[in-house]
């Protein structure tokens, strides 16, 4: 269960930046948003209160809307300027490490997530956290690569993998420690259709609670609950079909009338 309690993120405004303007009033469903605006600050995410218990939650929104920050609040990569974020009762600020043990995070750029020179070593590194003997760690790592159909790439240089293979490997590394929750920040944005389908199917089949930030509206439509974030606010929170429709309206509206700075 993921809880946001008036979680708000603001940063010091660079010189010359204009304050964020509130978007037009919209259906906000179960998520409540209370706007604040302090001078000298740029709000990345307005204070948001929402409780996510559904197994599949998707978050959609324009670039720069705040959805990546929303995702990073969950595993404590970004700490709220005010308010709280809790995962299964653990606070992201007070129990950051415990939260990160429970929350796996997948970035859109797979390349930067892969730390070791070969896939087998990378998955083995993830497994170092679980106190296993060296032989057991190696066996478990091979098992995991097997599960993701990456066995034939176990000793190949990570540098030589395709984008899709890298993302699959990143997923394998993150799921190796069996987190309770998985947060994916646009994992398929850089992938072609074939890999996008493969990754989305994989995500759909997971046991974990999944929060999927995505531009892929078809993938979002498969979720149990969809949040639409626009300009630092959650502007829609509800069933996938209506959320996607609302989002499309929002984007076409903004395309026709370019937003003011």
């Amino acid at each position, binding site marked *: 269960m993921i809880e946001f309690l008036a979680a708000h993120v603001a940063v010091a405004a660079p010189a010359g930046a204009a304050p964020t303007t509130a978007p037009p009033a919209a259906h906000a469903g179960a998520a409540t948003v209370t706007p604040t605006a302090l001078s000298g600050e740029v709000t990345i995410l307005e204070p948001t209160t929402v409780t996510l218990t559904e197994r599949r939650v998707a978050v959609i929104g324009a670039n720069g809307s705040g959805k990546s920050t929303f995702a990073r609040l969950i595993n404590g*990569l970004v700490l709220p300027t005010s308010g709280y974020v809790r995962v299964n009762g653990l606070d992201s600020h007070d129990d950051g490490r415990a939260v990160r043990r429970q929350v796996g995070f997948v970035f859109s750029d797979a390349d930067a997530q892969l730390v*070791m020179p070969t896939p087998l*070593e990378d998955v083995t590194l993830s497994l170092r956290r679980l106190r296993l003997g060296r032989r057991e760690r190696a066996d478990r790592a091979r098992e995991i690569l097997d599960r993701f159909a990456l066995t034939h790439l176990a000793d190949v240089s990570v540098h030589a993998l395709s984008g899709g293979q890298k993302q699959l490997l990143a997923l394998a590394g993150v799921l190796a420690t069996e987190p309770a929750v998985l947060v994916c920040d646009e994992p398929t944005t850089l992938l072609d259709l074939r890999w996008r389908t493969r990754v989305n199917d994989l995500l759909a089949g997971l046991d974990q609670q999944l929060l999927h930030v995505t531009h892929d509206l078809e993938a979002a439509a498969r979720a149990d609950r969809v949040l639409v974030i626009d300009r630092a606010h959650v502007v829609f929170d509800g069933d996938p079909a209506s959320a996607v429709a609302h989002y499309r309206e929002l984007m076409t509206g903004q395309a026709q009338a370019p937003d003011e700075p």
Partner: protein
Amino acid sequence: MSAGPGPVGETGSQPPGRRRRAVRPRWTGPLGLYSPGHSWVHRLGPGWKLAVLAVVSILLTVFQRPAVAVAALAGALAVLGVARVPLRATGRSLLPVVVVALTFGAYQWWARDWQSALVTSASLLAVVVLATGITATTRTDRLLDSMTRSAGPLRFVGIRPQTFALTVALVLRTVPALIDLAWDVRDAARARGLDRSPRALLVPFVLRAVARAHTTADALTARGLLDDDGVDGP
């Protein structure tokens, strides 16, 4: 001759007198990748190999004499030979370092004398060749395990051996990625006709390298790899 363009590579469709250019893989840094083998070098423990590298580096620094430097280089090359490291791939990865070593040597020759030139070039090459030999004959995770063990004393200065080992792995992993980045930046500058401008090449490279560092840091934090979980190796 068929009407219309032939398949790629069909010599009949090439203009006369133009040869096909060889396609070479990009340079991915001076340190070679692990290539499995059965030589005694492969079988030697990583701790010993690292110790030899350390001792050779110290000797080369203390005794700066042409005979010592050349002997070290010959020894390093012998190690590569015994380990049957793939010659072409390794030679290609070492080429830029050879160029740099020769350049330094040339400068020393002009500034001082041929003995200093020989010492500089040969020492640099010897150390890099030996290091390449090590990475080519040791699985990275074993190398890291060994470094973690020997870095134990660093604990007293507040550096966790785990973190030290992880840093080394990251360097091995990041060098090819940064080189890729440099090529991308050069391509972008070229497309704009700016490939002679140092600023158009350096600024994006530095910014993107730093951005990548931030993303890597986020990923390391998210995966909890820097946490003090108390797991100390095999």
